[in-house]
């Protein structure tokens, strides 16, 4: 079936089975391998994307659900070679080790900061409870989200 949606700011139409998993559509058909698959069952968060600004697990979504939506993947965050402040903070604070959880963690953090722009550390921990990371012990991810929240708030103030 033909499905129309916006992907990282551009209108796009795909022709695929209605029940194709969004993670497969992104990774295999569209070449956007930023979102990772680690469990395929909603248990790890590494496939997280934004759908109309809201964090969703792309391994649990079907292509037909994308109709008319605005999709953002990790590839859509940096603009003109400039990292999003959250990405910048992940790099600077050492939140990236193997990096396989990183795209999902970044997308989930964006979702968290949208809902709670100034979270306490404990709130960041709770907010990222669905994003497994086997490398970092999470501390530097928390540092990064905390630092990014400050920067993003400063930028948003007039």
């Amino acid at each position, binding site marked *: 079936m033909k499905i129309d949606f916006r992907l990282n700011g551009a209108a796009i139409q795909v022709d695929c089975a209605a029940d194709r998993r969004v993670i497969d559509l992104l*990774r*295999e058909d569209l*070449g*956007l*391998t*930023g*979102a*990772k*698959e*680690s*469990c*395929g*069952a909603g*248990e*790890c968060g*590494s496939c997280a994307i934004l759908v109309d600004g809201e964090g969703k697990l792309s391994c649990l979504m079907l292509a037909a659900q994308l109709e008319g939506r605005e999709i953002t*993947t*990790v*590839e859509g*965050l*940096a603009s003109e*070679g400039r*990292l999003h402040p959250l*990405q910048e903070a*992940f*790099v*600077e604070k*050492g939140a*990236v*080790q*193997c*990096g*396989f*959880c*990183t*795209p999902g963690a*970044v997308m989930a953090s964006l979702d968290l900061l949208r809902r709670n722009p100034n979270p306490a550390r*404990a709130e*960041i*921990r*709770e907010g*990222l*409870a*669905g*994003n*497994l*990371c*086997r*490398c*970092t*012990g*999470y*501390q*530097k*991810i*928390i540092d990064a989200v905390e630092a990014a929240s400050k920067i993003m708030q400063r930028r948003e103030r007039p």
Partner: protein
Amino acid sequence: MGEVRRHKRHSEGALHIGASTPRADAYAKVTGAEKFAADYYSSDMVWAGVKRGAAPHGVIKGIFTDEACKAPGVIAVLTHRDIRGSNRQGVVRKDQPVLADKKVRHCGDAVALVLAEDRETLLRALDLIRLDLEALPGVFDVEEALKDGAPLVHEDNAGGNTLLEAHIQTGDGLTAFERCDEVIEGRFETPWQEHAYLETEVGWAQQQNDGKVVIVASTQTPFRDRAEVAEAIGLDLEQVRVIAPYTGGAFGGKDGITVQTLLALAALHSNGRPVKMWWEREESFIAGTKRHPTRLYYRLGAKGDGVLHALAARLYFDTGPYDHLGGVVMTLALEHAGGAYRIPHALLDAWCVYTNNPIGGAFRAFGVTQVTAAMEQMMDMLAARLDMDPLELRLKNALTRGEKTCVGVTLTGSTGLVECLERVERHPLRTERYAWKAAAGPFKRRGVGIAALMHAAGYGTVVPDYANAKIELTPEGKIRIYCGVVDMGQGNASANAQIAGSILNQNMDSMELVLPDTDRTLPSGSASASRCTYTFGNALIGAAEILKNRILQKAADLLMAPSTDDLTLAPGKVVNRATGAQIPLSRLGRLMAESERTAISHFRAPVAKDRLDVTDELRLHGLGHAVISYGAHLAAVEVDEITGAVEVVSYLSATDCGRALNPQIYEQQIHGGICQGLGFALFEDFRVEQGTVKSPDLATYIIPTAPDTPNMESLPVELHEPTGPFGLKGVGEIATNGPAPAVANALADACGIRMFRLPMTPERVLLALRGRETR
């Protein structure tokens, strides 16, 4: 494929040793641009997958593939009959079939390989394969497996179900216990630990027109893989090329073959089309290796003043049906069984045992995690018996440089255990512990526990631990490092850039990394054993120094300087300090011949020189290490007396891993190790019943999440290691060893219960609190 990694970061100054430079690989990972093995796709790609025996032990009477072969979209179905080589793989002992032939020996054994047009077809075809298995009685317990008459996992193994056994006696052995004032005993059980890397086993392969098979795999060991693949499926070494991108986590679980051989076999039957194999999470849990479960019997004797006198230990390792690295893991555990303490008399016995359970293999800290969990609890039990402070007891017995461990290895390198313990001793978490404990709320108990750690790096005395570093000044004026040691997430690729960049005074933008590729980089051993930056870094220093001299000499020639004395490298150029004249590296790169602008250097790690009274076999398996890191950990826990839940409130570590080349990467390693250790201590309960995995996914096998993880403080104790690159020692593994004993000791401190079995789940803690499991 095999492309050069460049780094897009805003330019900063030249790289420095000791600076927390953000990692070179972080940019591409955080933008989603980094291409992991899992990210290889192409339009003409074939999906390959494995039919597994799904029975713990049985004779293969028939493998019926006809229906699967006939299914539309199926390209090939292969069995052991389609393999021309040895059909055996393994690191030390080649005892694991690529595709099972006579028997299946655990539930994850691969029996048939299917190639299909897409994943759905693949799954359907796998279902259509029928196996006729005649069930055999299985063996699932290490001590049962050693009894006469136990079912044999490998009928042709001379030792029955014993893969490797070892016995070491030092001093007077057991008779020394007669002279002890206090003797403590304990029997400990540690479970399997699943690596649970986020990137499950995955790879991509294609046979080129010239017959060569190119494999891109998530692996820690590309060079060893190449040899294993070639032998197992009957190819020449030159016909196999292995490329190893950054892995999405490995931790020892990719120290050896996972998908590689199967992929290469598939590529021989796909008519030149590329083949992808990616294990699903459940498959990874069932077929992948795990940390060996152990049963450990300890007896520790001391004088009345707390001076350790004698140790006896019997260590049983369950390696499942295959060696993988079981014998080597057991041997490293044996070497660390008595910790970093002065114990003059010891008798240590160890068995690595075949069973029909999942495969035991390498997992970060390689057996040392298990014995440290036991030994460090023994120390606290002894301290309690002697009414001594546990930290004082450790300080009293801590080894210093020049002394021998209880297996007889002399500590010749930097030895910072005392310094680590002293850092912990002075920390507020320790000095203010009584007040903190007293402030526990209703139905809560608080406790503080410590653990002392040592962890040896490298391969030991016999297997050569070496690296060959290659570095190049490119015609574009960049510095390109060819490294054959995989970066599985630990950041050694970036550390290499920092090492070479600091010697050549270049910034990160000038550095290019060629990741491991058997065609392009040089053999440098595995990414394991806390050796990556130590061994390769030493080789790289040599290569970078050669290149530096060549660049300066060429610049002197071109600038007509009388010598190189006034010349200095600066980012992107060479400067004559006397005249101010400059010459860009890009110009030098164009003017130098390739042989001139390329430098290679070899390093071989030092080994322990002691003449240990042990078998050659044990030496071959690694006994005797020369470069050792040390640490002291402290856990502050709060126990809920109603639920049995243990919350680790704060965690402190002090680590002597020599000089921290990059403090941020150092912290990353410590944090990650602690978190995995906390999972091992508290949550990770890999359940297996009669050989069948009962915790096959991340919903039933619980690894720590962000809210489960405490704030961690990681103090570096930077003693200079004379043999290390810039004084560094390995830091990749040691932290994993601390949490289990530190938390167990904290739990004992909080409520007087001693947990002899990991993980310390709320149910077990509650049982112990009710006095049913206390001993």
